[in-house]
């Protein structure tokens, strides 16, 4: 019966994740919220599929956090970590200290004794590494300044758990008789910690690569995966034995291995386990939320959660200001870390066991922290959809430059695509008016010595100011598809004198440009992939001219295909796909004929199959 029970549990967890995560993703809320909601649904308060056992599951699932920190470490090279030492100890200390202080003061207002109030403050000071890092990574913000500061603070919080665990028992209303360890043991402990950490660093540097090299020789991929897991589990175990946070140890190992040649191998091996375990972790957090508590005191619980988020965000924002984070980055930073920490669950249990406060307060704390975790994805979404756009639009509110010259050519967009055009035209002494609305890019290109105007070319006034009425050509090299299409329509409507040359992101963009009647369309990757295929053919023994002709015959055909298919684009999808297939078939035939000795496009360059009378042919050959 036991095994079927395990299977049932596994089935429930997996099914909940598979159903709810895609829905949450689809709604733009990120996977974390999906997992949390799945947990609530299968948890004891809704369907009750999983009950008391979820505590054990959470213990296993916590290992996902350990793996995640290993992966975060792999992304951070030692010199980057060294650069973060300021934020880790500066911002980290400030964050934990200030948050704990403010929360403790609030707790005092709820008539808690000073000891338990400090305990509550310390418990609430942490943030969820799992949620913050997962969401930052999902949005691609992990490498931004705000993201890096977040990681730094999270690392410090991980460090801080150890002293907090040591201090908690002392904060009880009634002092238990637990005595602290004797001094000699502390000495020994310090040595042990030092030894283990050096072993991780030295082992990571000098042992891992040769061992993995040996394992790679077996050509058994699962052995390498096993070794990667063994590495992480082993380090976590060692850290636990000496009483340090396993997550911290694996993080350190990750950093040491960030420069090893097996970095990508390790990453690929650990990633799926981390993903599944983290998911499991979030599900069990969701399941642990006591809905009845919320039902009985909805207003109190909600205000506690909102209060917690506000306090934490405000403290973080102040710290962001102190460490001179840019405003937009500061919002990412303070909203990313506003939720409570998964360590809070552990700390609460520990505090209750040590009779620092009673079970009732403990339950409430767990519910508040869990709810703050549920709120976290929404904070991310708010940041992404509401706050960040304001900053980018504020950036764009830099006044457009005065344009003091009228040139025959206007180039819109001077990123990696437009810059080449501007340079080539410049080399031929063609006067161009170059516009871009990325202030950094404009300043950069100016530094190189080119004249670029800052402004949004897709706006009518800007285009008019750039001399669109007098210019001959408008080269649209911006990489935003909708912006490009809008600019085309604007130019067609107000400046029909302009000859349009438009960069197309992909075929779809090309179809839409053709539909708008644009003649000169340049698919941005086409030439580069043709060049690469030409070189491939040459390396396979084709003559240069033959390879060149093959690629350009292909290009002609492909461009014709795009034109033909554009007519059907946006009509009936089935019909469209049918035509695409048919077209590809003809292409096959074309190249089949090219492969056959005759007749191909080069048939003039070979001996006719059936040569007639000798005198007929004036054209000498072969």
């Amino acid at each position, binding site marked *: 019966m036991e095994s079927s029970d395990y299977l049932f549990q596994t089935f429930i967890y997996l099914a909940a994740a598979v159903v709810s995560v895609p829905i949450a993703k689809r709604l733009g809320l990120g996977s974390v919220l999906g997992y949390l909601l799945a947990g609530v649904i299968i948890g004891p308060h809704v369907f009750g599929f999983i009950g008391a056992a979820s505590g054990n599951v959470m213990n296993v699932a916590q290992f996902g956090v350990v793996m995640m920190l290993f992966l975060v470490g792999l992304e951070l090279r030692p010199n980057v970590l060294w650069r973060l030492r300021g934020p880790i100890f500066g911002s980290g200390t400030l964050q934990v200290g200030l948050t704990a202080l403010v929360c403790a003061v609030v707790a005092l207002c709820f008539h808690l004794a000073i000891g338990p109030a400090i305990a509550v403050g310390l418990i609430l000071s942490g943030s969820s590494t799992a949620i913050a890092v997962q969401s930052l990574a999902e949005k691609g913000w992990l490498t931004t300044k705000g993201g890096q500061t977040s990681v730094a603070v999270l690392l410090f919080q991980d460090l801080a758990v150890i002293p907090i665990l040591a201090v908690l028992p002392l904060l009880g209303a009634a002092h238990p008789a637990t005595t602290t360890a004797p001094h000699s043991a502390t000495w020994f402990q310090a040595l042990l910690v030092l030894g283990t950490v050096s072993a991780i660093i030295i082992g990571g540097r000098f042992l891992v690569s040769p061992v993995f090299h040996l394992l790679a020789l077996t050509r058994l991929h699962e052995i390498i995966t096993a070794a990667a897991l063994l590495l992480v589990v082993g380090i976590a175990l060692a850290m636990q034995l000496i009483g340090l946070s396993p997550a911290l140890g694996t993080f350190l190992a990750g950093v040491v291995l960030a420069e090893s040649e097996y970095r990508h191998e390790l990453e690929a091996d650990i990633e799926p386990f981390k993903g599944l375990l983290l998911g499991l972790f979030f599900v069990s957090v969701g399941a642990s939320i006591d809905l009845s508590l919320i039902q009985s005191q909805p207003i109190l619980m909600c205000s506690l959660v909102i209060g917690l988020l506000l306090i934490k965000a405000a403290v973080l924002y102040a710290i962001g200001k102190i460490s001179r984070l840019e405003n937009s980055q500061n919002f990412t930073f303070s909203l990313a870390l506003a939720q409570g920490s998964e360590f809070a669950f552990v700390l609460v249990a520990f505090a209750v066991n040590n009779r620092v406060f009673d079970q009732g307060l403990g339950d409430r704390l767990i519910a508040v922290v869990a709810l703050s975790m549920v709120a976290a994805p929404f904070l991310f979404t708010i940041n992404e959809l509401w706050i960040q756009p304001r900053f980018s639009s504020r950036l764009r509110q830099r006044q457009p430059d005065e344009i003091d010259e009228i040139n025959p050519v206007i180039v819109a967009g001077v990123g990696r695509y437009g810059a080449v055009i501007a340079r080539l035209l410049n080399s031929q002494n063609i006067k161009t008016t170059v516009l871009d609305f990325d202030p950094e890019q404009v300043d950069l290109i100016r530094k190189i010595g080119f004249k670029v105007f800052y402004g949004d070319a897709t706006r009518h006034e800007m285009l008019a100011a750039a001399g669109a009425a007098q210019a001959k050509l408008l080269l649209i090299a911006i990489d935003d598809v909708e912006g490009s299409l809008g600019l085309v329509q604007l130019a067609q409507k107000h400046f029909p004198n302009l000859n349009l040359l438009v960069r197309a992101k992909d075929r779809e963009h090309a179809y839409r440009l053709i539909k708008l009647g644009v003649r000169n369309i340049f698919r941005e990757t086409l030439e580069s992939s043709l060049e690469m295929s030409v070189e491939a053919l040459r390396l396979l023994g084709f*003559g240069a*001219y033959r*390879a060149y002709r093959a690629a350009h015959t292909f290009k002609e055909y492909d461009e014709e295909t795009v034109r033909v298919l554009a007519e059907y684009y946006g009509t009936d999808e089935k019909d469209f796909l049918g035509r695409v297939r048919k077209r590809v078939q003809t292409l096959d035939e074309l190249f089949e004929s090219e492969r056959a*000795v005759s007749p191909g496009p*080069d048939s003039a360059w070979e001996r006719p199959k059936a*040569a007639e009378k000798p005198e007929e042919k004036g054209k000498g*050959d*072969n």
Partner: protein
Amino acid sequence: MSKTARRLLLLFAHPAVHKSRVNHLLVSYVQSLPGVTVNDLYEAYPRFLINVAREQALLLEHDVIIFQHPFYWYSSPAILKQWQDLVLEFGFAYGKNGTRLHGKLFLTAISTGGPSSAYQRSGSNYFTIRELLAPFEQTARLCGMTYLPPFVVPGVLWMDDEHELASYASTYRRALEALRDNTLDVSEIMKLDTLNQAMALLPAS
């Protein structure tokens, strides 16, 4: 007549070497000869962007300039015309001070589809090969080069005999060796219709 070795520059033009039987074979017979530089124009300039400075430098480094190509429409494949238009510059190859090519030998080596009999008044091509090569001959003259009778592989459309092809190729090799080693009297060769015939003048080796 001095016996110092000449350096030969073979400008080769065939747009589809992978389909070629004759020209490919001819090149393969001579490309490893010491003193012979093969310059495959379609290989070097698939986009027709001829590097004029490089080509002029090559010309100056050699004593015998050879155009080898199929005789397309009584002339050369397109790239060789492009080469002439760009490389034989005023002031370099002709005109005022354009004497850099003076004194070099110039040879055309062609394959023709029709047999020799087609290149006469009664044949379908009406003109003789020498007459049809007049633009090349005059180009050489204007550049101050000595125009040698052409090396011709005629009738290649119907030439299926591998031995015959190979014999043309080895004749070609012997002709280039003779030009390189200066074992033929140029004034004697000049009296001939084709360079092929000059092989009879060579001392038996």
